[in-house]
């Protein structure tokens, strides 16, 4: 078991990070290399002002018509995204590991709060999953990959929660947690999870088009 633990915590972790970073890096390179072919005008209309206007608008809860139209979804998605990003980065367990490895540390979440945020992420994934089943307009555009993605996202949180609370076999759970976290990281550049990054580009493009060329709002 120790061997497996070492392997997952060592080489596999590195591999996941490398995949994550290089995947994003390659995607970006591809984006910038191909941006001018065959549609030569895409960069031409780029406007920092209108691009940011659009990004900020859409990252503010209830600032757009459609966020207001779906209050429950909006609340869930913003809290979900917030917890999703904040929890792993500021979890004391994670920071301790990094401190041990590189003597780097930062502010950490109180454990109770971290637990709550973890549960929120898991709950949100359940919410999204149910939404995908019960809302006809969502069900229609849903396929198996969407559920797989939800599992990929929820898995590290579920296993982390279980491991931390020492349920089931804690070591096995920790291994499962590390593995699922690594899968999530590695999946980001290669699945629809790359909306994390592409959001800023597609939004900036539409924002620029609407602001600079069409003189209209895009929200």
């Amino acid at each position, binding site marked *: 078991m120790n061997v497996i633990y070492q392997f997952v915590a060592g080489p596999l972790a590195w591999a996941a990070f490398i995949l994550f970073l290089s995947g994003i890096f390659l995607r970006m390179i591809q*984006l910038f290399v*191909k*941006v001018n*072919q*065959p*549609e*030569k*005008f*895409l960069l*031409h*209309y780029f406007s920092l002002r209108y691009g940011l206007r*659009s990004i900020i608008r*859409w990252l503010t809860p209830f600032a*757009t*018509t*459609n966020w207001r*139209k*779906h209050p429950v*979804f909006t609340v869930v998605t913003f809290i979900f995204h917030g917890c999703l990003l904040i929890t792993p980065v500021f979890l004391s367990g994670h920071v301790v590991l990094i401190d041990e490895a590189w003597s780097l540390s930062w502010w950490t979440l109180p454990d109770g709060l971290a637990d709550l945020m973890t549960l929120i992420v898991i709950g949100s994934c359940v919410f999204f999953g149910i939404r*995908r089943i019960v*809302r*006809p*307009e*969502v*069900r*229609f*555009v*849903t*396929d198996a990959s*969407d559920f797989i993605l939800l599992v990929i996202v929820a898995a590290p949180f579920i296993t982390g929660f279980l491991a931390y609370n020492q349920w089931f076999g804690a070591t096995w759970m920790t291994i499962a947690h590390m593995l699922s976290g690594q899968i999530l990281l590695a999946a980001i550049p290669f699945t*629809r999870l*790359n*909306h994390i990054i*592409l*959001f800023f*580009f*597609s*939004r900036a*493009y*539409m*924002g620029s088009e*609407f602001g600079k*060329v*069409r*003189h*209209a*709002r*895009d*929200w």
Partner: protein
Amino acid sequence: MSEAQNLDNKNQLDTATEAGISRLTPEKIKKVVDCVIKRETGVRFETYMQTCIHCGLCSEACHFYLSHDNDPHYSPAGKIKQTIWELIKRKGNVDRDFIRRAVRIAHTECNLCKRCALYCPFGIDIAYMMLVMRRILHKLAVTPLYIQDTAHSHSVTMNQMWVKGDEWVDTVQWQEEEAQDEIYNLRIPLEKHGSEIMYSVIAPEPKFQAQLIYQAAIIMNTAGIDWTMPAGVGWDNSDMAMYTGDNEIMGRVKRAHFEAASRLKVKKIVMGECGHAYRSVADMGNRWLGWSMPPVPVVHAIEFYYDLLKSGKIKIAKKYEKPVTLHDPCNVVRGAGLHEKARYVANQLCDKVVEMIPNREHNYCCGAGGGVINCGPAFKLSRTEGNSVKAEQLFNAKSRGAMTLIAPCHNCHSGLHDIVHHYEVGLELKFFSDIIYECMEKPEDK
């Protein structure tokens, strides 16, 4: 009408398109799909494909979805799923039935109105994806008959309605003569080099609605505008080739339009109350030709009237009395941000303006735009039934007093006409120019 009814059967298109479909082979379909996707799409397409998180948030943007009791087959992402996603997933290995459905969806169930771009958190441009689909259908030669014929007309005559060179000039001169009964020295100067403004229209004006040229002439002459109209190709600013995916013809037609302006050495182009033409001239056509912005400034009629009223070149003798409601055409509101100017014009002209709900950038499309009405009578019923939410919106404005519906766009005009009739809404349809003509101070006769 009988044709309309039996073709409203989902499994059938017009005979010419069916003939096109019957000629397709799996190899041909795959080849065309590969070619268009590989050679003509790029980062934008890929990003939209990869970013769409399948959240369905765009659904409520679409009047087709809303009008079909929230049937997800009509949601923006739902329509992409049934067309582009499937094509990509199956690597172009699709059959004729798939193509038949794609024709119906891409050509008659999406107005390319871009309302959904305001509802998708990622700003995914469904209209663009639909145009990619239409481009593929164009390359497969299965574009619906009526709009294909219109694209042919553009290719031959550079106008939308097979108007011949002599017919155009003759019609303009006829309207000039008619209008001289009202203003004795009125002119519609043809080919006047060095004028300030070239006025361009769409071919349905000389073909069916010559009174609009008449009204424009009265407005121009009263306001003392130094203007001209071209006597040769380029007088028509419309462009259905843009909507059939025949980008080469779109570009050719737009070049003719700009070259007419360039040849006449005008400072700007003023165009009549047409939305899709604005999109073709100032958004899509210019880009295909390599002009980032229109090389000669293009002023849409709304903006032109705004300037005339604001500067006092046109004065209103007596305001239009009946309460009006204002339809914001997609192509000049989401497309050009002219909504506030349109309101200024409406308020200057009319005693009372009742707002539609929703309005401005969020207004519902008329259901005719994006080439949908140009697919012909076979799809008229599905078009009007696909936009009951527009009828509701109109009824609501009517319940708050509106009696007249202003639609400053040709396509909207025709689309709303059909909706007003189909649902018996009971609103009178007008262009801005109808009301300006009716209410403005005109010069005293000699």
